[in-house]
């Protein structure tokens, strides 16, 4: 049964190929159904593989499927091969599952789009790349998937390319990712130069070849890659712009799957991470800073999708923090739960946007609970889950992370807790401004007329909402912090055996921490409710500093953007034009000037030439005669 693994990436690949060649002819909505069916096939294959894997004893739950040798050059032998173990299996299950739901949702959401089939072409290719990323048995094939999802993300963000800002957002995402990729590439070079291979199994078996300093460098370089892909400081500001893409894309790529790839990568190479405690600290600090900074920004954004985007950045910050604390299981646990509730929140937001004809401004929404009952009903679960209210999944998963952080450093834990408070606050603000209060969409704004009454989404969009709402509520139960009920921990144990902080704290501490988490969540919820119930316009709680994202983009523009442009212009005009080409043309001019002078000798009169010949002859004779004479 485990040998069905190759079907997981194969289905989306076939779907991609079919839609690419025939998609335009198949059209709306069957192209969408074909795309969804391909992912459903992958999901079934994942379930079958999973069943097979569970059937094995815990110690032998790993196997490799090799297809062909990709790059065979001397000592560098890279194979196209899949590696199945509990970690990649977990990823595959939730990736295919969530993707399937979002494909289904897209059938309704994208209805009537002029490039309907193209959307599913990209989406299927994305799922294929994502599966390659998680299933690869070596760093280089992981990188193939890594870049594949990146380019799909580029295409999907700039999907509505007619608008200049969408196109720029896609480009920005790609370039930020590329900066991270430099880290990934250099890490691969470094690891290859020391271990002579890029296969995970070989690298881990020869850990001793990668010494302390090299390990730190390799981990930090990989982490740079992870920062790009998972939108962490200092490369996080592409993700909010990425919201320019269609909402299902934001849900799938920029919340549930692709952006968590950095976390997956770090977990995948956890044996290397453990060689370098210094790097762990860097990772933990970057993670907690990102979580905190993004949380503060999320409290002040006006756009419903931007709030969710910064929320995603913040939540991934938690995952990175967990990785930095050696709590890989907790990171993956949060990733899975986050995929469910953030996917749900994005799809809910999409449903709102779809229902109000593309209104994304929180200040133009409100009181939608009556007109969008299904959206509202499912959104509640997502909201409570992310806020960390027990017994929803966010409470358990975030709690797991914070427990582990507490074991590493109470300071980091305190920042994490404040972030949790903020999370509950901004989500409640979003929830309140969208579904409660006055129906602001009825009032015409200066720049646009009042909306018609919003409409609830069709059933293809409602089903994913319902399924995700259920999952977001109950997913936490796969890993309860009680001995014997921590199924997820046991399942992943073979992968992360030997992790630093694998054991849970003393049970009393765990209880105390859990109660604190729950109390903080309720507090955040309460504060937001008090503030935003009064009125929707509260500029004092939305400082400009936060609205402008801590002036992060402006700073980059000033530090890198404008000097970079100036450098390019200077190189192109002065260095290239004046110096390098100037030298070449200078030689040309020199020749021209000399020859202009020299051509005067060519008078064109035969007698002059004849005279020159005669004089030359005379000179030669004179020379020869003088030689004879003097000798």
């Amino acid at each position, binding site marked *: 049964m485990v040998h069905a693994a190759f079907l997981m990436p194969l289905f989306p690949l076939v779907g991609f190929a079919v839609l690419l060649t025939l998609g335009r002819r198949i059209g709306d909505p069957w192209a969408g159904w074909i795309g969804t069916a391909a992912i459903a096939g992958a999901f079934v294959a994942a379930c079958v593989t999973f069943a097979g894997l569970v059937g094995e004893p815990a110690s032998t739950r790993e196997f490799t499927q090799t297809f062909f040798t990709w790059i065979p050059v*001397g*000592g560098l032998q890279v194979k196209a091969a899949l590696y199945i173990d509990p970690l990649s299996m977990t990823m595959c299950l939730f990736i295919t599952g969530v993707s399937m739901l979002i494909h289904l949702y897209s059938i309704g959401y994208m209805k009537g789009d002029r490039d309907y089939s193209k959307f599913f072409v990209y989406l299927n290719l994305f799922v294929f790349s994502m599966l390659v990323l998680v299933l690869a048995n070596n760093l280089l094939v992981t990188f193939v998937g890594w870049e594949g999802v990146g380019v799909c993300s580029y295409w999907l963000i700039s999907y509505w390319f007619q608008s200049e800002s969408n196109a720029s957002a896609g*480009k920005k995402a790609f370039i930020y990712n590329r900066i991270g990729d430099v880290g990934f590439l250099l890490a691969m070079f470094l690891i290859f130069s020391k271990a002579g291979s890029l296969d995970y199994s070989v690298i881990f078996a020869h850990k001793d070849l990668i010494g302390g300093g090299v390990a730190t460098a390799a981990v930090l370089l990989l982490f740079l890659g992870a920062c790009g892909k998972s939108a962490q400081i200092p490369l996080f500001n592409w993700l909010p712009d990425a919201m320019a893409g269609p909402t299902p894309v934001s849900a799938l790529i920029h919340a549930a799957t692709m952006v968590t790839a950095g976390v997956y990568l770090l977990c995948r190479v956890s044996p290397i991470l453990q060689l370098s405690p210094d790097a762990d600290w860097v990772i933990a600090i970057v993670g907690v800073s990102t979580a905190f900074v993004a949380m503060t920004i999320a409290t002040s954004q006006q756009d419903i999708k931007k709030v969710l985007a910064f929320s995603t950045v913040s939540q991934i910050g938690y995952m990175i923090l967990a990785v930095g604390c050696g709590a890989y299981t907790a990171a993956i646990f949060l990733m899975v739960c986050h995929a469910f509730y953030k996917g749900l929140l994005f799809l809910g937001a999409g449903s709102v946007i779809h229902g109000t004809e593309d209104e994304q401004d929180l200040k133009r929404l409100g009181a939608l609970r009556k007109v969008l009952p299904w959206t509202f009903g499912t959104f509640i679960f997502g909201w409570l889950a992310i806020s960390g209210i027990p017994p929803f999944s966010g409470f358990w998963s975030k709690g797991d992370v914070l427990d582990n952080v507490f074991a590493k450093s109470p300071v980091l834990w305190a920042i994490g807790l404040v972030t949790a408070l903020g999370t509950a606050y901004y989500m409640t603000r979003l929830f309140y401004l969208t579904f409660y209060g006055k129906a602001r969409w009825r009032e015409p704004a200066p720049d646009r007329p009042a909306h018609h009454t919003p409409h609830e989404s069709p059933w293809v969009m409602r089903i994913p909402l319902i399924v995700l709402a259920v999952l977001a509520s109950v997913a936490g139960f796969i890993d309860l912090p009680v001995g014997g009920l921590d199924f997820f921990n046991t399942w992943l144990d073979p992968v992360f055996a030997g992790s630093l902080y694998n054991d849970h704290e003393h049970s009393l501490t765990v209880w105390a921490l859990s109660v604190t988490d729950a109390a903080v969540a309720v507090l955040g919820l309460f504060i937001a409710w008090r503030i935003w119930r009064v009125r929707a316009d509260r500029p004092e709680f939305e400082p400009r500093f936060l609205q402008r994202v801590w002036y992060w983009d402006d700073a980059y523009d000033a530090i890198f953007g404008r000097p970079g442009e100036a450098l390019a212009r200077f190189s192109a005009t002065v260095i290239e034009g004046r110096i390098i080409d100037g030298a070449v043309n200078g030689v040309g001019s020199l020749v021209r000037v000399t020859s202009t002078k020299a051509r005067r000798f060519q008078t064109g009169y035969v007698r002059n030439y004849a005279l020159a010949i005669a004089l030359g002859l005379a000179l030669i004779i004179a020379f020869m005669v003088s030689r004879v004479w003097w000798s």
Partner: protein
Amino acid sequence: MSHSPGFPYLTVLVLLPAAGALVVALMAKAPRKALEVLGVAISLATLGFAIGVAVLFHTHTGGFQFVSNHDWAQALGIHWFVGVDGISLFLVLLSTVLFPIVLAGARTKNDPRSFIAWMLLLEAACIGSFISLDLILFFFFFELTLVPSYFIISGWGYAGRAYAAIKFFVYTFLGSAFLLVGILAVAFIHQHQTGVLTFSLPALEHTHFSGTTEVLLFCAFTAAFAVKAPLFPFHTWSPDAYSQAPTGGSMILAGVLAKIGTYGIIRFDLNLFPQASKDLAPVLLTLAVIGILYGAIVACAQRDMKRLIAYSSLAQIGFIALGTFAFTTQGLTGGVLLMVNHGLITAAIFLLIGWIYERRRTWQLSELRGLQTPAPVMAAVFTVVMMASIGLPGLNGFVSEFLILSGTFLVHRWWAVAATFGVVLAALYLLWAYQQGFHGTVDPVNAKTRDLDWTERLVIAPLIILIVFLGVYPKPVLDRITPSVNQLVARVEVSTHTHQPLVARYGTAGAEIAAKGQR
């Protein structure tokens, strides 16, 4: 070692297009269509022979195959001495693939007879350069490429063609002068030592040079190749020539002719002057890295698509040089592979730009806008090619770039690190260019742009297929390049008493030995 079938495949590879050129040139009365068909047919027949060579080529042997060696000017020691190994095989294939595409896809209405004849002559000269194992023969073909390219640029080019053609010709010719002096010097030194006057490469490899002589000769050879490639800072003819040449000319200039330069470095510099190559490697590596970064930075400031691609080519050639002078199996193999990949990619890009010009009469990015709306297929093809150029894994550019960088990193860490940043810059200018030309709301002028028709799709399809295939399954190519590269690396190692890191050759086993050695 060298194996040669009875039939002189390689000689035919040169003579067929050359004869074709003559025939076409003489058909003064033939209608345009007939000439075009004939041109494509001849180049396709050449491609057929090249494929035959590739099929009969023995994998896993590093030496020259299909060797044929005949006296030409016996008293002067000049031979018709041709052969291919893994390094030149794919360059021959690249040439034979690109010429039919040029003849079919970049046709010209103005005097097609001369154009086709020049192109076929150029094909013969290019193939001849790649298969010559006699230095004078190589020089002959190396120079012969200049004549047709000069006439193609000056005859069918755009507004600034006269300046561009002269600059191209004179600049390259100046470099060749050094090459000729170098070749003669090598042969005479060899004659002095052995009493035999010969220009055959395998014989001259055994010449012994004193240190300074070797450095000087290396510089003489490299001057010609660096201009031809072009390497920074000898590149300024290329933006002018690439942008002013007609579409087919740009495709061949950037796709094939540039490779003769880098091929020359690998074939002649490394084989004849291993010690000097090794000694001067830091200089060339530095020039390569500067070329990579500088080319990319200057490309960022271009508003003219053809010049942009010219500068991006400068960066790519920098990568080739980087891999070459790393002297590791990965670096050199990657370098050879990148020659092929870059040939395919730039040819495809120039072809697309040519088609855009046919429709819009411009390739200035400021005048193009939102082309993806009226021409989605063209946009899709452009995207694939662009992504290959950026180095997206799964497409061909990545494999070579990765090999080069990983091979360089093993021996010259910081050069590789600096070069890796070129990867970001490539994304920067190409995505920017794409956004300018294809994204955004289409204006009325651009809205009527015709999408690719079926002929055009058919013409560019082979390039796209190769770009994808070589990205996904480069093994058949790598298996043939690597043995020859290993032989070359071994030659350099023996002559310089150095060796590449064990990791490069033996992977993990090598790494273990190296680690034990350190302790």
